[in-house]
Every structure is written in structure tokens, then in C-alpha cells.
């Protein structure tokens, strides 16, 4: 006979109670009166002198009841030879998730991680399947289930260890949540996984830093059959400080001495607080200006402005005083300020608040990286070719002379962009000249009340900034008058916006390699409310973008970012790079990689990860299986029910016997004392 809960057998020791009570001569049910107890003190019951049991049968019944109760709670069962559970027979499917983010470059972490992989692989049996995935920003299979299965059983572990030995931490940030979700789906989605009934386990080998991105893990419904075992690795040095570039102040170009602002953050478990930060020479042999001392308590960050050295702001800034150097270099590429020119043809003067030029000049972007100036040209004379070539974009809000139109058409054919806003039907000649067609159907139209933009193609670059429903409301822009253009007969013309009556409002017409954007209503207040609406400035910026320049040129990227086309380099490691055009840009570590203080496992669980379990010990697994078998056998036999029934019977018998004994004793137990 075996017991599921043998500790309950200790309850049988309670039989000592009845044995002791039966040795005590105490008849507490006898009561008597006495005149005064002032000379008496309570006396404890005493054992019978001859150690003689009273009511032996009662004693036996009481001991029997207690013994049976203890036996029942111990859940006895007969062990039977039964087939092992299917789970024990089926192999495990194990995914080893290896963190190769930049923070794993810290001293001592990677060898620990490799050791953990080796120790986990030692627990993987022949029937088990294992896969090794590395994750940084993306999940990369190091060894797939198929490769594991394809390898001979004896060579599997060596194969996996070779793959791990060949791997190394990268520079990406850790997207821990996405990696866990992908690993869980790998274990649950495949056909083989659905057929398998064995345990599915994920071993996460990581430094579990606080900066790891949990992504969609909080919202993910973790599959119940997948277990997660954390295998945290710990760095040799707790101190880690990081350095990040933060955005320049808007008036940076107005400062007498331009500076670069950097944030130095210190991990919460750091033991150092004093650091130095400064520009480094190109060869890295030392700091250019004197480094700036900075005091950063653990868990906090400080912002420091470093003056841009005379040679320019492109270079690297180095943080010293830290024990871990992987995130101590910041690459800075300060973009050169660009100066663009926009040529303008129109009848209005610069200060005419009713003319379109007044509003256009104020909508052109002016920021530390870009300055756009508007240059007025004579509508009667063709502009000098140098001005035409230097200008990024052309605006015309009046009729042009034939010569000027021809010169502009030549530029359009070469790939330039022009915006034409005909003020009246008289500008049809200019439009026809630009398009090199005999004539275009352009007439004035005055709506009864006002017109609105009713049909807008938000896929067009001009309107794409407004594609979000938050910004796509154009109904507040009232249009008082416009021109009606017949698109028929104009090759390639496409109305990207129409008035509510169906007439084209903005027409995109390709001209050679360039394009002509025709606004059939002006933005000046006499034509419409477009210039005083919130849409005008983004539209002008979109036109500049369309003309070939980026108004918000970015020169700072994070490792793993997708670089714009034309950059001609990858962002897999930090550093200073140059685009094909020769412009410098910098790639840096993600700021989250510097937050290396360990994340509490409970926090991971709170964000949706399943119950954190340690990696199971094979001995524990065997013991657990035996326990499961015992519980199964006991659950089928249920001896405890019979024993409990017998206990009740014995207790009933005991009660009856005790009652009979009490009734027999009571008459004989009369005591002295006369009460009035």
C-alpha cells in the first residue's frame, strides 16, 4: 500500500490524546455545591495510580477513529503497473531563445549565455526536439527544428554548440516581447507542434534588462501549453552608463556657439556616479576639447550641452568613467544647412496681404537645416537660366509671356516641378504654352455660395500628409471662385482633388520628366480660404518634398533602422557613414540598450508573460511523473471514501457507547451538598 499524502499519517499520533484522557481520572460532568471555595484552589486532574485504563472499549474505538481518519487523509492506494502518461513518452519541443542584443556585449555575459545553452542542451533527450533562435530587433533562427531533426542524434548537440559558438552579440536593441511571441507561435502553430503532445518549453537566455522592449506581449494571449523558463545571465560589472543624442533646440542656429545636447543615463544598479563626456578625435586617441565632468546618480539621467568643435559637428562623443563601453560612443552627424530658392511669377508685390505671394513666402520652411527663399521673377521676361537651374520649385500665379513659359517648359522637361495657379481664364494661354498644346479649356466659375474640396486623392504626395482621418477634413475651406479646366485633351492630366461640383481643383500633369501642378483656385483670400487654413503650410512642404528635397532630412539613425533609398549603407552597426551623395549620417545604439538594470521577473509576468518557472531538473521531472502516476492511481481507487465511511461508523458506535456509559455512571455520581 502506498500513500499519496503520507505526512497525514502523522495525524495518527493523535491517538495519544484518548490514551492520556483515559488515564486521567476526571469526572468533570459531576458538579457539586460547597459553602465557600475561599480556602480552595483548583487541583489538576491526576492520573490513575495504577495506570489503569478506564472504559477500554471506548478507548479502542476512539483510537480506531483517529487512526482511520489519519489513514483516510493519507490517501492510500495500491500501486499498479500502468502505462506511463503520454506526456512522458512524447518528446519535448524546446526553443532556446538567445539574446544577442547590444547589452549582451557586456563583460562576462556572452560566455555565460553559451554555458547556459550547453547546459540546456545536455537535458535534451533523443526524443526531444530543440531549436535555437537569437533575437535582437529581429528573430533569427540559429538552428531550426528541421535542422535538429535532420542531424544524427549523436551530433545534434555538437551541431547546436557550434552554431552558438559562431554567433555573437550584435548591436541591435532587444525586442523581447516580439521574440517571445514568435517563439511561442513557433511551438504552437506548426502541424508537427499540433500533433505533438509532449511539453513545449522556451528557455530564455538573456540579461533581462529593463530596456528590453516587451512590444505586444501584454496583449498576447500566451498559449497554456507553452512553458517559459528564465535563464538570466548577470554581468560582471553592474555599472553601465549610456549616452544618447537629443534633439537640438529650435534656435540652435541662432546661438553664438552652436552645441550638441547629449543625455547621459546611468543604470539603476550602477556603483559609479561620476563620468566625463567629450568629443573624441577622429582616430579615437583622445578628446578634442576638454571633457565635461558630469554627475549622474544611479537610475537617473543628465543632459549636457557640448559645444560643437570648430571643425564641425560631425564626429563622435565618448563617455568615460563607465565600466561597460559598448554604449559609450555616440556618433553625431550634424546636417549642413541647405538653402533653396523658389522662383515666383505673379502680379502681386511682396507686401500685398491680398496676394498669394504674401502667404506663400510665410509658408516656406525656415529651420536649422533648411532655409527656403522666394525670389520673384518677371512674368514678361524669361528668367536667367542660372536662376531657373538653381531654383528648386516654380510658382506662377499670373499669365506668363511666351518666352518665359517656354523657358519654364524646358525646365519641366528636365524634371523640375512647377505650380501654376491661374488667376483667371486668361491664363489659359500660359497653360497651353507650358503643356505645348494649342489650347486648353479654362473658364472662370463662380459658385452660388461657395465651393469646397470634395474628392481628394490622399495617395498623392501633395495630400498624403493629410491621409490620417484626424487631418483629412477639408470642408472648412470655402472657395469663393475657381477656374474650370477641361482635362480632356491634356495628356496624362489627373485630378488629385475636385470641387464638390465635380470640377477638378488640383491637377497633376506630367511634363517630360517633370510635372506641373495646377491649382484651379488661388490660396489668396479673394479666391479661397486655403492660405489661412491649417492645410496650407503642410501642402507647401509637400510640394517642396515633391520637388526633390527633404525638408526634414534626418542624419541620425538607430541600429536596425531602415535607411532611406540612396543612402547606400546598412545600419547593422553603429558608426558614421556617408550617403552616395556624400552627406554624413550617424547610426547609434538604441537608448533602451543602456538601461541594463535587471528587470524583475514579476514585472515580466505582470506584462502578460506566463508563470515564470525555472528550468526543470530531470530528477524533479521524474519525481513529478511518479507523483502524477500515484495521483492517478489514487484517484481511480478512492480508498479514502471507504475509510471515511468506516470512520463515521466507528464514531457512531463510540457515541452510542459513550452515551450508554455516561447514563450508567451519572446516577452513581451524586455529590454532597444541600441546596435550599
Amino acid at each position, binding site marked *: 500500500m502506498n500513500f499519496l499524502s503520507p505526512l497525514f499519517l502523522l495525524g495518527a499520533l493523535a491517538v495519544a490524546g484518548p490514551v492520556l484522557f483515559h488515564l486521567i*481520572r*476526571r*469526572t*468533570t460532568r*459531576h*458538579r*457539586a*455545591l*460547597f*459553602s*465557600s*471555595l*475561599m*480556602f*480552595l*484552589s*483548583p*487541583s*489538576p*486532574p*491526576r492520573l490513575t495510580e495504577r495506570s489503569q485504563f478506564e472504559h477500554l472499549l471506548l478507548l479502542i474505538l476512539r483510537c480506531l477513529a483517529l487512526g482511520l481518519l489519519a489513514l483516510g487523509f493519507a490517501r492510500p492506494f495500491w500501486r499498479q503497473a500502468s502505462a506511463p502518461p503520454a506526456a512522458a513518452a512524447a518528446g519535448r519541443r524546446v526553443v532556446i531563445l538567445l539574446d544577442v542584443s547590444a547589452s549582451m556585449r557586456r563583460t562576462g555575459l556572452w560566455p555565460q549565455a553559451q554555458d547556459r545553452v550547453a547546459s540546456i542542451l545536455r537535458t535534451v533527450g533523443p526524443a526531444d526536439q530543440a531549436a535555437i533562435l537569437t533575437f535582437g530587433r529581429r528573430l533569427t533562427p540559429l538552428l531550426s527544428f528541421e535542422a535538429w531533426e535532420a542531424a544524427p542524434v549523436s551530433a545534434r548537440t555538437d551541431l547546436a554548440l557550434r552554431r552558438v559558438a559562431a554567433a555573437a552579440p550584435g548591436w541591435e536593441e532587444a525586442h523581447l516581447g516580439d521574440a517571445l511571441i514568435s517563439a511561442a507561435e513557433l511551438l504552437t502553430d506548426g502541424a508537427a507542434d499540433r500533433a505533438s503532445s509532449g511539453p513545449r518549453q522556451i528557455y530564455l537566455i538573456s540579461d533581462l534588462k529593463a530596456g528590453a522592449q516587451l512590444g505586444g506581449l501584454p496583449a498576447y494571449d500566451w498559449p497554456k501549453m507553452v512553458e517559459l523558463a528564465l535563464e538570466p545571465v548577470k554581468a560582471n560589472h553592474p555599472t553601465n552608463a549610456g549616452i544618447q543624442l537629443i534633439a537640438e533646440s529650435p534656435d540652435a542656429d541662432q546661438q553664438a556657439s552652436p552645441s550638441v545636447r547629449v543625455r547621459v543615463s546611468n543604470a539603476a544598479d550602477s556603483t559609479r556616479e561620476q563620468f566625463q563626456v567629450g568629443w573624441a578625435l577622429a582616430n579615437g586617441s583622445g578628446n578634442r576639447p576638454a571633457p565635461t565632468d558630469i554627475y549622474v546618480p544611479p537610475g537617473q539621467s543628465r543632459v549636457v550641452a557640448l559645444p560643437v568643435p570648430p571643425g564641425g559637428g560631425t564626429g563622435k562623443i565618448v563617455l568615460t568613467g563607465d565600466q561597460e563601453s559598448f554604449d559609450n560612443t555616440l556618433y553625431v552627424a550634424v546636417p549642413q544647412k541647405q538653402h533653396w530658392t523658389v522662383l515666383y511669377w505673379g502680379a502681386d508685390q511682396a507686401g500685398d496681404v491680398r496676394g498669394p505671394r504674401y502667404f506663400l513666402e510665410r509658408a516656406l520652411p525656415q529651420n536649422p537645416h533648411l532655409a527656403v527663399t522666394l525670389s520673384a521673377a518677371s512674368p514678361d521676361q524669361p528668367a536667367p537660366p542660372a536662376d531657373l537651374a538653381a531654383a528648386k520649385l516654380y510658382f506662377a500665379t499670373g499669365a506668363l509671356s511666351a518666352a518665359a513659359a517656354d523657358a519654364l517648359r524646358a525646365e519641366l522637361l528636365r524634371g523640375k516641378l512647377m505650380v501654376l495657379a491661374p488667376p483667371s481664364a486668361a491664363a489659359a494661354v500660359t497653360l497651353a504654352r507650358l503643356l505645348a498644346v494649342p489650347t486648353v479649356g479654362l473658364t472662370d466659375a463662380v459658385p452660388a455660395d461657395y465651393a469646397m474640396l470634395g474628392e481628394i486623392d490622399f495617395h498623392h504626395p501633395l495630400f498624403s500628409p493629410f491621409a490620417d482621418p484626424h487631418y483629412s477634413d477639408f470642408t472648412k475651406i470655402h472657395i469663393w471662385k475657381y477656374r474650370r479646366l477641361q482635362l480632356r485633351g491634356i495628356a496624362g492630366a489627373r485630378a488629385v482633388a475636385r470641387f464638390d461640383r465635380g470640377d477638378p481643383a488640383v491637377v497633376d500633369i506630367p511634363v517630360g520628366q517633370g510635372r506641373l501642378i495646377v491649382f484651379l483656385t488661388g490660396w489668396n483670400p479673394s479666391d479661397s480660404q486655403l492660405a489661412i487654413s491649417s492645410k496650407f503650410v503642410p501642402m507647401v512642404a509637400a510640394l517642396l518634398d515633391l520637388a526633390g528635397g527633404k525638408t526634414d532630412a534626418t542624419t541620425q539613425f538607430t541600429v536596425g533602422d531602415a535607411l532611406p533609398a540612396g543612402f547606400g549603407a546598412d545600419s547593422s552597426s553603429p558608426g558614421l557613414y556617408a550617403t552616395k551623395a556624400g552627406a554624413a549620417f550617424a547610426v547609434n545604439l538604441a537608448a533602451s540598450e543602456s538601461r541594463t538594470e535587471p528587470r524583475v521577473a514579476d514585472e515580466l509576468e505582470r506584462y502578460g508573460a506566463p508563470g515564470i518557472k525555472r528550468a526543470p531538473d530531470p530528477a524533479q521531472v521524474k519525481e513529478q511523473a511518479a507523483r502524477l502516476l500515484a495521483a492517478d492511481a489514487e484517484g481511480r481507487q478512492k480508498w479514502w471514501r471507504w475509510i471515511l465511511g468506516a470512520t463515521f461508523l466507528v464514531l457512531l458506535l463510540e457515541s452510542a457507547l459513550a452515551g450508554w456509559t455516561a447514563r450508567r455512571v451519572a446516577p452513581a*455520581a451524586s*455529590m*454532597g*451538598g*444541600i*441546596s*435550599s
Partner: protein
Amino acid sequence: MTLRNLELRARTVVEGFWTGLHRSPYHGFSAEFTEYRQYSPGDDPRYLDWKVYARSDRSFIKKFEDETNLRCHLLFDRSRSMNYGSTGYSKGQYAATLAATVAHFLHSQGDAVGLLAFDDQMREYLPARHRPGHLRHLMLALEKPAGGHATHLVEPLSRFAALVRKRGLVIYISDFLAPLERLETGLATLTASGQEVTVFQVLDPRELTLELGDAALYEDMETGQRVYLDPATSRNGYQARITAHCEAVRSACQQHGIGYHRLSTADPLELALFEFLQERRRA
């Protein structure tokens, strides 16, 4: 104690002790002449002996022995502890018989008998009188059931001292199973006021020996307190304590010349009366 009627029991006990006349400490008005005294202004002229005045021309006052002015008060403990008894009757019944006997005896001699019954406070007071029917009232008062949840031994003494100013005999009947604080002071006050005090401590034999049988849960008849008690193990200590207590009562009485009689309810009542009379005769 087999007679149910208390008065009958008392009368039975008194028979045979009719000789117990005592001399009154007071001089009063009766037929028996005692002495002459020189008249002094202020004396009642009714008691002038005119014959002597006629014979000798001197004024003398006749003095007579007062036979009816003995005032006896019974201080009777009616607390619940007096309900205990193991001899077939309780201490209270024994004490009531004792009190009734004394009352009957004194009443038969023409003395005035009063009663002050108490437990934790004074419950009943009958002034000392010698009237027809007074003895009957006194018997009825003695037969009333016990009450109270404690015994206060000094309270009746102080109340008695406040109520009764005249000198007389005080018979204090109780089991004295109560704290003895200030008992000696109370007795001293009583004797100092000219009272002649006699104490009867009535106890059950089992109260002296604690022969109670088996262990049981014993309940105090006055306080209701319950303790588990094995008499066999508690007996020695109890006997020492009850003996010391009785000795303390005796000592307090002796210090003030008070007659002390410890009575066991197993003893015949006649012996108690005999002892009492013998003591009075000696006095």
C-alpha cells in the same frame, strides 16, 4: 433537628435548663427590694420611703432589682453558605434552631430578644422586645430562606452599634466563612459600647475535614465560582487554612473578652446551650 417546627425545637432544647436565671446588671422597678439610698434633689419623690421618713425624719429612696431589662440581640447570618449541610440538615437550620432556642429561653425568663439578620448587608431587624407574639415574629424571621451572594461580617456589627445604644447581650451566630478584615475592630466597637458579646461559629463537619468524595466541579454557593477540585489532593492544605481561619476568629474574640463557641452541626444543640449557660453562670 427532626422536629420541623422551629419554636417546638427550641422549646424542647430549653427544657431542663430552666435554672439558668441570671442577675440583671440594671436596677429597675420590681417587687424585690435591693437597698436604700440617700435622697438627693432630682430623685423621683415617688420612690421616697415615707415610713422611714416618718420614723427617722430622713429622706431615703427605695431601690428595687430590675428583672426584665436584659436586652438580647441575635446577629444571625443568613448568607447562602449557611445552606450547606452534609448531615441531613444545613448549617442555617442548625443555627436557626440555636438562635430560636436562645430566644425562647430568654423570652421564657422575661428578657427582651431582638434579631438582626444579615448576609452581605442587613436584611431584617427586630428590636429587642418582650411582648406577646414577639417571639413568634422572631421565629418567622429566623425561618426565612437565605439570600445574598456574600457574607459581610463587619457590616452587621456597625449597623447594630448604630441602631442599639442600650447595653445588653449580643449573640453573633455565623459560619464566619468570609474575610476577617476589620472583624476585630467591629467586635471591639461592640464591646466598648457596653455590649456583652458571644460568638457562635457554626460549621459543617465536612467543612472542617473536606471529606467530599470524588473529584468534581465544585461551585461556591455564594459567588457561583466553579473550580475543578480533587478533595483528596486539596485536603491537607484546606484543613490547615480552615483551622487557621477559625483560630483567627477565636483570637479576635479572646482579645476582647468575647465568648467564642465553635459548633459542628453534628454536635447536639443542647451541649451548645449548656456551654453557653455555663459560661454565663461563670460570668
